[in-house]
């Protein structure tokens, strides 16, 4: 781990970049889908016990797909409204805020969640803003009036590292 001191590169409260956001999103999709799959499997098992018939629900079922989309909506919208971050974002140390720096409102969280698929539907062009815009805002950020920043304190992390690897001098 030879790297420049984080003390000189603490990006806390600055706009987050593409890699952190993409990684957080991948983790979120994997996590939320995993939770949903487990929930569906559990529900299938309970249904099969109650009905005494073999029940196998999966996402080829239109009802299950609709519930899945609803779950994804709730997962992202609630997380952004409640704390500005999803599970994946918390792991990567990034957070959704209002474009003016204030905490994201519930309304912004809902709009962001609804506008999020648009960035995909435009052949991914909606995400170009993260790379090209000064404030690194994607299409869904522009629509919802939000931005994503680093909330991770690299300086504190460096101090923890130093504390672990350099035990104090015994007296």
């Amino acid at each position, binding site marked *: 781990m030879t790297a420049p001191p984080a003390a000189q590169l603490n990006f806390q409260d600055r706009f987050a970049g593409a890699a*952190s956001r993409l990684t957080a999103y991948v983790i979120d999709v994997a996590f939320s889908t995993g939770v949903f799959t487990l929930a569906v499997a559990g529900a299938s098992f309970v249904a099969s016990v109650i009905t005494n018939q073999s029940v196998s629900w999966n996402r080829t079922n239109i009802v299950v797909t609709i519930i899945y989309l609803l779950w994804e909506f709730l997962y992202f919208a609630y997380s952004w409204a409640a704390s500005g971050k999803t599970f994946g974002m918390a792991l990567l140390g990034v957070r959704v805020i209002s474009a003016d720096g204030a905490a994201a409102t519930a309304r912004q969280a809902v709009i962001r969640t609804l506008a999020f698929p648009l960035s995909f539907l435009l052949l991914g062009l909606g995400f170009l803003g993260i790379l090209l815009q000064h404030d690194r805002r994607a299409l869904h950020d522009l629509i919802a009036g939000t931005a994503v920043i680093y909330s991770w304190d690299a300086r504190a992390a460096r101090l923890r590292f130093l504390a672990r690897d350099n035990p104090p001098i015994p007296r």
Partner: protein
Amino acid sequence: MGKRVTDPVESLAQRVAERVVDLVVRSLDVNALVQQVDLNALVDRVDVAKLVDRVDVEKVVDRVDVNKVVGQMDMDQLLAKVNVDDLLARVDINQLLAQVDVAALIDRVDVNEVARRIDIDALVTQTDLGAVIAKSSGGIVGNALDVGRSSAVGLDEFIARWVDRFRRRRYSGPPGPPELLQPARPAPPVSPAVAPGPAISVVEP
């Protein structure tokens, strides 16, 4: 009749006396006379204390231009003669400190500026503060998180630098909402003895 005789005589005597004195003074060798005087004996007979008592010292001091006197002094030479150790030995530090208004002194200190000068890295590695932090912070999971985040931020910067290079723009780090960013502070000095931590790895394109 008596007065008519005595007045011209007295006048004549006066002129004669003046002439005689003039001749005597002219013929007198003052230097030789002074050499014959025993000045020490003369000074011994002078009551200096009585003389000084008659001098108005304040009046004399008022006429002295102190600035001019000080200006003519070689301060370096003067200070070289001062034995500072002796001087300090005579100072009652406790009494001196008792007169200091510590609260007023602290009010004048820019604590933020002082804190900025502290080498936090050296403080953590060389004092028990490191142990406190190590105890209060997470273990393997926390470490893994720090490393993962560092890598992601490093990749962010790598991508951003390359994008700006293609756009022929100079990259100067990620901006942030002005409302959240505090005034820029210079990074504290990093002790050369301290190993680099799980820092953000920024790869130069």
